[in-house]
């Protein structure tokens, strides 16, 4: 019998009396009896908060993969980065957490300015001038990029590198059912997109990932040239932490940048809520999906912020809107701005560098184990894929016994085969190292894998 209602029984009676009624039932009398629920909801009775909490302990203890119990070497776009107390506390302030979309800018300058600062950071990290205020996640951000490409070119053919995360490709295929997009997946050869193997004529977009989902750093010149040659938009998905030191999407000539913003202050969270990063060139601003905050002044000439270019959005354009996005992931965008503020110019570079150092330190040892071989000979950044010579799921389960979440099974991401890996992929694991992993933890990983694959 728990709830959060303030009404006393006397108040309820008085309020009903004010309406000329004497029961709740009369408030619903206009609903046809034929559809009314006669028995009440088929749900257990309510419990107090401590009772619910006690029940949830059973579930949290069944989550053995939590980072306090197991050392995380899993990535695939979701990374175990340091999130300090200061970021958690600031991002958890109830003024940010319990606000609605900033429809009344006079009382929403806090969220609006935080988004403006977030947009500035997205623009700098992408090297593109027009960011938006966030989308749901990396996968759906890429789909918005595809829709933008159709708007820009009037075409439907999407040429997507198999280096793009398999889940992103799968999401694109789902939404193509409605938009009619024809999706052409370009295979990888030795971890690098084999652009020559497909016909990109009539493409609306050329889509690649940097680093790609197997961690490989591909030279993006070929993708850009292909886009230019075919009059297509070049959409580049980048790892936003790597973007602290690597060439930006803009420097590679991308028209659209998309990314998964989870690494900026959002916990692993079992996959959500995350943060879809998006930015584009000036040419595409009228097709920008979702919200954008702009600077302006108030009637007393003070600097102010407001959501702008509203004429693109669904509530005004309805069926002619460039996107159906309404609610986005603002709190994660605000969190990203705070986390980046904490990291600062030096800190982001330091984190990116340490990820690369840790990943290379682990890689060099792993490929020295008998039966472990690299999937690609190409340079990588903070993540890499290796064949372990045995079923990856079994290897990961055995590593888990030793307290190591050893990575992701590529088969679990892709299914039984995928153009990203030639031949069988059931023995492939994708391994990542973040700045939180110590040398001892990495050395332990090596010892455990050596035992498991022996």
């Amino acid at each position: 019998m728990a709830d959060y209602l303030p009404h006393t029984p006397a108040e309820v009676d008085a309020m009903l009396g004010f309406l000329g009624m004497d029961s709740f039932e009369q408030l619903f009398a206009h609903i046809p009896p034929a559809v009314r629920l006669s028995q009440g909801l088929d749900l257990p009775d309510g419990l107090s908060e401590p009772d619910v909490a006690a029940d949830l302990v059973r579930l949290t203890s069944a989550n053995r993969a939590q980072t306090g119990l197991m050392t995380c070497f899993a990535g695939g776009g979701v990374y175990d980065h340091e999130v300090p107390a200061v970021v958690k506390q600031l991002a958890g302030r109830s003024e940010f957490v319990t606000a609605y979309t900033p429809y009344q800018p006079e009382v929403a300058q806090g969220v609006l300015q935080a988004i403006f600062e977030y947009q500035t950071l997205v623009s700098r990290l992408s090297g593109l001038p027009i960011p938006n205020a966030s989308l749901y996640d990396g996968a759906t951000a890429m789909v918005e990029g595809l829709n933008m490409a159709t708007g820009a070119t009037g075409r439907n053919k999407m040429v997507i590198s198999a280096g793009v995360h398999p889940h992103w490709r799968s999401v694109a295929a789902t939404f193509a059912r409605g938009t009619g997009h024809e999706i052409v997946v370009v295979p990888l050869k030795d971890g690098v997109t084999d652009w020559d193997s497909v016909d990109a004529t009539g493409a609306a977009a050329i889509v690649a990932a940097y680093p790609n989902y197997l961690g490989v750093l591909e030279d993006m010149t070929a993708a850009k040239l292909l886009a230019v040659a075919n009059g297509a938009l070049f959409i580049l998905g980048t790892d936003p932490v790597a973007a602290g030191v690597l060439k930006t999407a803009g420097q590679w000539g991308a028209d659209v940048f998309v990314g998964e913003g989870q690494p900026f202050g959002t916990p692993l969270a079992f996959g959500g809520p995350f943060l879809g990063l998006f930015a584009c060139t000036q040419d595409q601003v009228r097709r920008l999906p979702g919200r954008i905050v702009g600077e302006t002044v108030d009637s007393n000439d003070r600097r102010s912020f407001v959501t702008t270019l509203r004429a693109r959005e669904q509530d005004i354009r309805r069926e002619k809107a460039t996107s159906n996005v309404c609610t986005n992931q603002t709190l994660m965008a605000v969190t990203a701005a705070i986390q980046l503020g904490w990291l600062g110019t030096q800190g982001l570079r330091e984190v990116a560098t340490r990820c690369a150092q840790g990943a290379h330190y682990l890689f060099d040892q792993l490929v020295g184990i008998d039966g472990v071989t690299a999937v690609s000979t190409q340079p990588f950044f903070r993540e890499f894929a290796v064949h372990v010579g045995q079923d990856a799921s079994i290897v990961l389960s055995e590593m888990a016994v030793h307290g190591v979440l050893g990575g992701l099974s590529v088969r679990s991401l892709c299914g039984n085969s995928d153009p990203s890996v030639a031949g069988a992929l059931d023995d492939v694991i994708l391994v990542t190292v973040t700045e939180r992993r110590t040398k001892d933890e990495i050395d332990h990983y090596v010892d455990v894998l050596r035992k498991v694959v022996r």
Partner: protein
Amino acid sequence: MATILPGGRAASAPLVGHGTEPTMFEMSAPGRTAFQLRTTGVPATPLSDLVPSAHLNPDVVPIAEVSERDLVGHFTRLSHRQFSVDLGMYPLGSCTMKYNPKFCDAVAADPGFNSVHPGAPASLTQGWLELLAQVEERLCAVTGMSAATLQPAAGAAGELTGLLLMRAYHSDNGNARTRILIPDSAHGTNPASVTLGGYQVTTIPSNDRGLVDLDKLKAALGPDVAGIMLTNPNTLGLFEEEITEIAAAVHDVGGLLYYDGANLNAILGVVRPGDMGFDIVHMNLHKTFATPHGGGGPGAGPVAVSSRLVDFLPGPRATRLADGTFDWVTPSKSIGRVHGWHGNALVLARALAYINVHGGDGLTRVAQHAVLNANWLRQRLAATLPAAYDRVCMHECVLTATPLKTKYGVRGLDVAKALLEEGFHSPTVYFPLIVEEALMFEPTETESLQTLEALAQAVERIAQRAMDDPESLHHAPQTTPVSRVDEARAARHLIPTEDAANR
């Protein structure tokens, strides 16, 4: 109850001063830092030895250079420039800004949930899979449906998912269709989603009672109609009383009924979409189940379906196996993924905590008190802001400022802005589009009678000001962190970043 003492409005903004807040970039000083990282012992090989130089950015990307103390000051000051549910009443119609229980936040912050990698094997994440399966069961019980996907990240994502399910169902029956019917009172996301779903919109006018015009609906039906999208109660806060006739008519031509769950909070435990004949239902968990809205998200938009659509649901879904364990299972004719992972999982965890605290009886009380509050407010304000449709409403009421506009030239927007000065967030203005000078109030069930009275008195003071000094209302608000902002200038000269501002 003789007199209601008014209470419960925000009364402290701005806390101190009227100046603007510098940006984080303006506060930066070269070389200043805040970050602290683990001591790892990993060899500090120079990056240039690990990554070919062709990949390294020759420039340093400037982020910000602030101390931790300045970071805290900056974002705390920004938070003081922001209205929120925790601060005061937020009667935004259609948005359901009810109180967000702190317990649910604590559940989401538990490392046993929030430190779990989404790609970890199912055997190591059984607690999460059970939680998701339980959320699905609970949502199906509330809506009267058979199964659900939890992947859509927000209501609009749920809408598009629902339309793709419709498309897959009709295609599977060898029966491609082209049109979706939508009432003229619908949320803008509905028609936008229809276009992305590959369908055309046919708009159905409302009748003089604010409900779907059944005759016009029937005239628009045909074998090319894939389905109809309805919000019930609709965006006027009115229950579609002819819902069984509407359902029968749509089903007769082989179409499906889509329930936009934006207003599901009004009917919890009273009537279920499944019993009304709906085939597909999306829910906005940040509305009905009180997960915090975060200033514009995250939400969650699960989609529940009737038995004939279960095989098409997105996958994989957390599924209870015969041996009592849980695993990921993809339905046989699945349309595929609609999210990079499993949906906004922490939002789903919050919603489950909310549902389990309330139980079936508590959720029913939520709907009852939400509807009671809306009707009390409608009646209380009748002399000042008349209802667009003057009869019993559900969880929200659409009032109109037309009398103030006609008599004093004071528009709904002026009333909304003046309410900010009174310590209340504005209602939703100019929506639905079919009501002139619309002010849509949704008080929600968690506001007390005293707070409703305070809101009513504030509206009455504004009406008095309209009579005495209408000009002052055109300049409201003045006591807020900023006054009315120049929206036209923002659009005409776009400055979306600090760098654009400095150019």
